[in-house]
């Protein structure tokens, strides 16, 4: 077995030691810290990005909530304005209706009074006309002149009787 030839043990071991120590030193002091640095930097970057993303998401959520809240507020305000306007409108309509009612009632009263006055006047006129007619009738029929008092009394009696 050529591996067991003694002469090459020392030179092989010597160069193994040289190679391995060199390799170890380069790995330990240069290469591995570099690789580790790259990995650490990437990890940091990813974590920072994730953090930023999380923050942005939270902000977006907050904005969304604020937006919804303002939407609800606006809706409520709109409802309030609408209700107020409706109330005001109703009140105004009621007031106008009442005013119109009052006016109409006033006019009706006035008209009724006028009618009453006209009727009373007509009635008074009727009594006078009846007395005149009765005087003329009695003068024509019996040729007697009836005094005003008697005529008035007779007309009043007739009206009383009819009434």
């Amino acid at each position, binding site marked *: *077995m*050529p*591996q*067991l*030839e003694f*002469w*090459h*043990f*020392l*030179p*092989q*071991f*010597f*160069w*193994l*030691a040289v*190679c*391995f120590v*060199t*390799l*170890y030193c*380069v*790995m*330990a002091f*240069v*290469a*591995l810290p*570099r*690789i*580790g*640095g*790259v*990995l650490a*930097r*990437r990890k940091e*970057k990813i974590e920072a990005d994730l953090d930023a993303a999380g923050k942005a998401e939270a902000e977006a959520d907050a904005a969304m909530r604020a937006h919804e809240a303002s939407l609800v507020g606006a809706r409520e305000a709109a409802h309030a304005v609408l209700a107020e306007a409706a109330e005001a409108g109703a009140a105004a309509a009621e007031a106008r209706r009442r005013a119109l009612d009052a006016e109409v009632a006033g006019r009706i009263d006035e008209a009724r009074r006028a009618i009453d006055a006209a009727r009373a006047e007509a009635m008074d006129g009727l009594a006078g006309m009846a007395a005149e007619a009765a005087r003329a009738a009695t003068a024509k029929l019996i040729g007697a002149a009836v005094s005003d008092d008697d005529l008035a009394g007779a007309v009043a009696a007739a009206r009383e009787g009819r009434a």
Partner: protein
Amino acid sequence: MATDSQGGGGHNPLEQFAVETWIDIDVAGLDLDITNSARVMAIATAAIIAFTMLSIGRRSMVPGRMQSLVELSYEFIANMIRDNVGNEGRPYFPFVFSLFMFILFCNMIGMLPYSFTVTSQIVVTFGLAFVVFIGVTIVGFVRHGVGFFGFFLPQGVPGFLAPLVIPIELLSYLIRPVSLGLRLFANLTAGHTMLKVFAGFVAPLGAFYIVPGAIPMAAVVGLTLLEFAIAFLQAYVFAVLSCIYLHDAIHMH
């Protein structure tokens, strides 16, 4: 397939493991030749350094293909240490990472035709295993002082069993580097020998008739796939076992 440069069938399948001097170096009477094995180790080291440094060079936020691969290996070993050792294992991360990458690259370079499989060299695998063993033992004593000897008598074992348990525990502790080094060495050596044996059948049988030549050829293809899996798996096993030994040294069972 670590086919040696002579190539061709009929050669000894173990010839691929032969170590040859490439550059002759003697320092103060010590033979420090750069061999074909040392050359591949240097290539593997350079390849790992290039792989980890160049592909992370741009340090992109969004990694490219090579950078992903480097990050994947980093996290793979980091998770292995977290799972097997815990947070106290952090300081040993560069060591386990270097160990895993070194074995993985040596195994993979060994899969290239005409290259050399360093991890089939018993000196190399035992060297790595003893580095782990000695390192872990030092970590244990630094962490627990003399109390680390308590490792050899698990809690809850009745006193009269101590003469029996302590030698067993001691032996199982001391055998660790041997099993660790031997496992890697044996897996790689056996796999590459088998590849070579089957590959050696292809040409002679194929010259005889096409069908008998195709059978070992199919076996070589299958074994090559298997060897790639083993190349990764053995690097993984070596690293995981190192982590488990570290865990024992830090947490005492």
